[in-house]
Every structure is written in structure tokens, then in C-alpha cells.
């Protein structure tokens, strides 16, 4: 291992060296800047939503404004943050190094995917600013979207274009894992993050075209008045939901699977032992990827879907709990009798375990037909998917960013600040979303900007909403604190050693503090698994003989 003075950041200079780069690490950084900006935007929008709901009555948004803001919050967070963030940032930066490759299989396609992603994002912003505000919700359900203004076409086109970025990224990772592994990097020596990104790639390639087709059909219907989804034209609005959820439910696994991969790596590294049930965790990622395609109808139990379909989808939904449970139990087992090291990334891993389990189990609850009839379109659903999407996917991302931050920037962040922010995020998150479970179970509907008329029957709505809003502010402070100490560490943070966590995967053991432009001077020869701490003489030195 050598101290790399000629690293991927210093190898080339200037703005053009970034905009025209085909280096997977730099493209990962480009995604980080873009997704980080959109996350900030989505977060600000969420704060508006929570502020409006904090007290009864109309406060800062009227009903149209409220509908537009939560729509934009959903579109930005789903399509511009959670779906692209982990594959785009950490998948790009880490995956090729973890398998001992010099880059991804198609570096130019990789850069093209970032440009497509940015084009989609700019189309969304342009449409919003200059064409009109969309208030359909992020799901664009017909017939509402069929009758809405043409602004909805801008937004759906943006989703269409950004979808191609996702397909390119997934395709690139699948080929990279198949073709670019270093000698000795057998399938059962792949880090579990790689397995997760690989399974995600399968979903991206198979499912994303369907959202593209759906958006094209919506486009054709609106422009050419062809009856596909709009009942006024002889179409079927529930058919739109089939199309939409055939992509968007697997998309939930595009969001959560990479986070699960991060958690597996964190559990192994910070428990200092072999990840329990490695093969089961790896294959459960693939199982989730495939089962995820079979459950879309559980979003449509009360949409008028046939009883037979609902029963089939309900039963299939329960199956998803099996591979997910396999992962959760194995993560817990990994910590058992391990040397658990509670650094910031591990705190986020534990947070994931707690929050995602709540999100997952409440998902099984609403997969039950009779329960879903009552809870559909209430705040219970809002709480459930935020526990999965934020408590799972985004907490996993934040944990991963803390873990790989030293490798990406060459700097360490302040550990104390990291722990304080993590505690704030945990408290803020639960204060925001736990009350929403109660609100939803009492019948508070989602997508209402005011609940004054409900208060005589449900006086508890006021304090619960207030608690949720205060929680969102605490969560916001925690997240901003992360931004501040991350930026501070970029300029003032102490220089990171090559392997500050004593991890065993190649990005830590075979590169300097900052990786070189082409990652390795010599292609690594892999002789052990990613979590074989007892064999990792090259990390910890030879074992002392007793």
C-alpha cells in the first residue's frame, strides 16, 4: 500500500476534467453533488408540508399549493434522490474497486448516464418553473393526470429520461460484475454490497423500461386523445396503476437493496467478524429482486381490482418477508459475539436495523387485505413508506457515506459531531413518523392540507401533527449538521489513513488514502473473502504465534 500523491482527485485539474471524466470515482462524486442538492431541495419541500400540517387551519400553503409541494417533494425524493443515489454515488465509487477492477465495463456509458440523469432533472425543474405546477402526486394516477395541465407531460418526460440513466447504470454494473472481477474474486468472495448492487442492476434493467412505456402511453393519450387510461376516452384508469406499479414496486427494491448491501458491509466491518449467513444474504438479495416483480397489485386493493388478483397479490406480498427476514436475522447474528465498534457508520447501521424493521413489518400489515382497506390512503401508509424509504434507504446511504467518506475525500470527519447528528436524526425521524402511524390508524387521510373539520371527532390529531412537525425540524437540524461537518472536513478535517476502519475489502486494503486514477498499480490477486478478518494478514499484519 502506498501513499498516493497522484490520486484520482489530483490527477487532472479543471472543470472540464470533471464534466468529461470517464473515471467511475469522479462520476460517483458528480452523482453525490447532484443527489445532495436534490435531497436538500426535497427536504426543504418536506419542511413546508410539515409546517402547513403542524397546526390546524391554513397556515403557509393553500390547498393547491400544498398539492403541488407534496407532488414535487415526492418526485424529487423518489426519482432524483433515492433511486439514483446509492448506485450512482457509492455503486460508482466503490463497486469497481471492491471487485479489483480499474473501472466499470462501459466508462463512457457511465458518464452518459449521469448526463441523462441531469437532463431529466433539469426537464423537471424547467417544467416546474416555466410550464406549470403539477399536483397529481408522484404517482401521476389517471384520470387525474390525463385531465391535468400539460405540465404533467414535462414531469413524466423527465421521469422517462432519468429512467434511461437508471437502465444504463444497472446494465453497466451487471456487465462489470460478470466480466471485470480480479483474479481470485470468485462469486462467493464478492462483498455483499456488490451482490446488492448486482441484484439492483437486474431490477433496473428489467423494470425501468416499463415506466418509460407507461409515460409514453400517457403522453400519447394526452396528445393524440387515444383511449388507454382515461375512461372518458374509453381507457382503463386501473390499467395505468398496473403499469405504474409494475415498475414502481420493484423500484422500491432498487432503493432498498443497495442500502441492505451497505448495512451488510458495515455489520461485518464494525463487528470484526465474518458476516453471518453470507450466502443466504447474497442470494436473498437476488430473491428480493425477483419476488419484487410479483407484488405490485398490493397497491391497488381498493382501486377496484378483482378479488382474485387482490388475494394473489396479498399472498405473494407475504413471501417478500422471508428473504428480508433472512437478512435481518443474519445481521443481528453477525454482531453476536463480535467486537462491535460503535463508530458513526455502525450507529447508522443499527438505526437502519431498527427503523427498517418497523417499516418492513408495517408493510406486511398493509399487505393483509382486510387491514389495507382501512389503512389505505391514510397517514399510516405515509409513515410506513417513510420508515422504509428514509429509515431504510436514506439511513443506509448516510451510513455508507460516513463509511466511505475517508476513501472518497481523503479526510476524516469529526466523530463526536457524527454521533450527535446521528442521535438527532434518530430522535427527529421517530418523532416525525411514529405519530403518523397513530394518526393513520385513527383515520387521518394523506394529501389533505387541513384537518380542522376532523378535530371535533378526533381532537388528538392536533397534538400528534404538532409532534410530527417538531420532529421534522429536529430531523432537519440533524441532517444539516451532517452537511456542515462534512463540508468542514473537506477543508479542515484531518487526513485519513488508508484504512481507518480496519476493513478487509479491496478498496481499503489495496489503495492509498485516496485511490489512484486507475485504482490499482497492479491488479490485485484475491485470496480470501471480504470479511475474513482472521485471514487478513495484509491488513493487520501476521498473527502472533502462541
Amino acid at each position, binding site marked *: 500500500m502506498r501513499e498516493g500523491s497522484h490520486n484520482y482527485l489530483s490527477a487532472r485539474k479543471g472543470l472540464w476534467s470533471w464534466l468529461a471524466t470517464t473515471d467511475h470515482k469522479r462520476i460517483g462524486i458528480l452523482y453525490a453533488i447532484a443527489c445532495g442538492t436534490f435531497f436538500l431541495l426535497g427536504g426543504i419541500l418536506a419542511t413546508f408540508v410539515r409546517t402547513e400540517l403542524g397546526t390546524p387551519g391554513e397556515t403557509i400553503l393553500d390547498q393547491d399549493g400544498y398539492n403541488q409541494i407534496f407532488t414535487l417533494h415526492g418526485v424529487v425524493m423518489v426519482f432524483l434522490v433515492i433511486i439514483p443515489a446509492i448506485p450512482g454515488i457509492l455503486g460508482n465509487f466503490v463497486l469497481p474497486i471492491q471487485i479489483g477492477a480499474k473501472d466499470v465495463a462501459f466508462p463512457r456509458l457511465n458518464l452518459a448516464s449521469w448526463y441523462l440523469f441531469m437532463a431529466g432533472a433539469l426537464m423537471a425543474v424547467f417544467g416546474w418553473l416555466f410550464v406549470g405546477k403539477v399536483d397529481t402526486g408522484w404517482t401521476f394516477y389517471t384520470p387525474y393526470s390525463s385531465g391535468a395541465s400539460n405540465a404533467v407531460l414535462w414531469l413524466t418526460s423527465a421521469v422517462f429520461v432519468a429512467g434511461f440513466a437508471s437502465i444504463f447504470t444497472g446494465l453497466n454494473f451487471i456487465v462489470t460484475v460478470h466480466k471485470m472481477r480480479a483474479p481470485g474474486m470468485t462469486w462467493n468472495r464478492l462483498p455483499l454490497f456488490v451482490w446488492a448492487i448486482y441484484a439492483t442492476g*437486474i431490477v433496473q434493467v428489467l423494470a425501468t423500461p416499463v415506466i418509460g412505456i407507461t409515460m409514453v402511453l400517457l403522453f400519447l393519450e394526452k396528445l393524440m386523445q387515444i383511449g388507454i387510461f382515461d375512461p372518458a376516452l374509453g381507457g382503463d384508469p*386501473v390499467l395505468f396503476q398496473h403499469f405504474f406499479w409494475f415498475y414502481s414496486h420493484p423500484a422500491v427494491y432498487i432503493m432498498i437493496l443497495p442500502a441492505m448491501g451497505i448495512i451488510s458491509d458495515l455489520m461485518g466491518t464494525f463487528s470484526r467478524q465474518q458476516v453471518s449467513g453470507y450466502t443466504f444474504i447474497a442470494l436473498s438479495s437476488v430473491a428480493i429482486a425477483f419476488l419484487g416483480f410479483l407484488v405490485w397489485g398490493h397497491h391497488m386493493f381498493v382501486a377496484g381490482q*378483482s378479488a*382474485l*388478483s387482490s388475494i394473489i397479490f396479498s399472498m405473494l406480498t407475504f413471501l417478500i418477508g422471508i428473504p428480508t427476514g433472512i437478512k435481518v436475522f443474519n445481521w443481528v447474528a453477525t454482531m453476536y459475539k463480535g467486537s462491535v465498534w460503535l463508530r458513526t457508520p455502525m450507529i447508522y447501521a443499527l438505526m437502519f436495523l431498527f427503523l427498517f424493521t418497523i417499516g418492513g413489518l408495517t408493510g406486511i400489515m398493509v399487505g393483509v387485505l382486510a387491514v389495507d382497506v382501512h389503512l389505505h390512503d391514510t397517514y399510516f401508509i405515509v409513515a410506513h413508506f417513510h420508515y422504509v424509504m428514509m429509515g431504510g434507504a436514506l439511513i443506509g446511504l448516510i451510513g455508507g457515506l460516513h463509511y466511505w467518506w475517508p476513501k472518497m475525500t481523503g479526510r476524516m470527519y469529526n466523530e463526536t459531531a457524527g454521533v450527535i447528528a446521528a442521535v438527532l436524526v434518530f430522535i427527529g425521524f421517530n418523532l416525525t413518523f411514529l405519530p403518523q402511524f397513530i394518526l393513520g390508524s385513527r383515520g387521518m387521510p394523506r394529501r389533505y392540507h387541513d384537518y380542522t373539520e376532523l378535530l371535533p371527532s378526533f381532537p388528538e390529531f392536533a397534538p400528534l401533527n404538532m409532534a410530527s412537525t417538531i420532529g421534522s425540524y429536529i430531523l432537519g437540524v440533524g441532517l444539516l449538521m451532517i452537511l456542515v461537518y462534512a463540508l468542514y472536513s473537506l477543508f479542515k478535517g484531518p487526513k485519513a489513513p488508508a484504512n481507518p476502519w480496519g476493513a478487509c475489502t479491496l478498496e481499503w486494503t489495496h489503495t492509498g488514502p485516496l485511490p489512484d486514477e486507475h485504482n490499482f498499480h497492479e491488479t490485485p490477486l484475491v485470496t480470501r473473502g471480504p470479511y475474513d478478518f482472521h485471514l487478513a494478514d495484509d491488513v493487520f499484519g501476521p498473527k502472533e504465534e502462541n
Partner: protein
Amino acid sequence: MAQGQHHIIPTRTLAAVFGLLLFLTVVTVITARIDLGVINIPLALAIAGSKAILVAWIFMALKYDNKVNLLVLALGFVFAVVFLALTLADTELRGNIGITEPGTTELTVEPVESE
């Protein structure tokens, strides 16, 4: 098939497949003009599917290619079938939302005996 070792498909095979595709196109047109009731759509899908398989198998050389590529195609096909089958399970039974006709069931409530 390793890189740079492209299989040359005999012209006779290509011509035969081309002829078969033309024949299936004629069958498509003829069957479209005849009302066969419930098998209209399955028949049209079967003919179209056969043509697509012929193109992928011979013209796109999947028959001679690495079997992983065949697996990828098969996966796409399987998921298209899953999508169609489960969506049709809804659209073809749309009226059935599990509610029986009025008067066909009798609700009886057993009185609870207090102890």
C-alpha cells in the same frame, strides 16, 4: 461464443426463416379477418411471439451465442408473461370484487349466552 468468433449462419437457414416469417405474417392477416371469439387475442399473441422468437433465435444469433444471453432474453419474456397474466387476472374479472349478489347469503347472528 468468444469475442471475435462470430458464427456464420448459412444463407439457406436465413432464407428459410425469412420465408417462415412471411408465412406467419400472412397467417396474422388472415386470422385478424376472422372472428374466433375468445381465442382472437391468444392466437394473435402466439403468432407474434413465434415471430419474435424466430428473429431472436436465428437472426440475432441467440442459438449460437453464450447461453447467458439466452437467459437474459428468457427473463425478460418471463416477466412480460407475469405482467400480462396478473393484469389479465384483474381486467378479465374486474366486476368481481368479492361481494355476493344481494339475497344469496344469509347473515345469522348467534346470541351469546351470558354465564
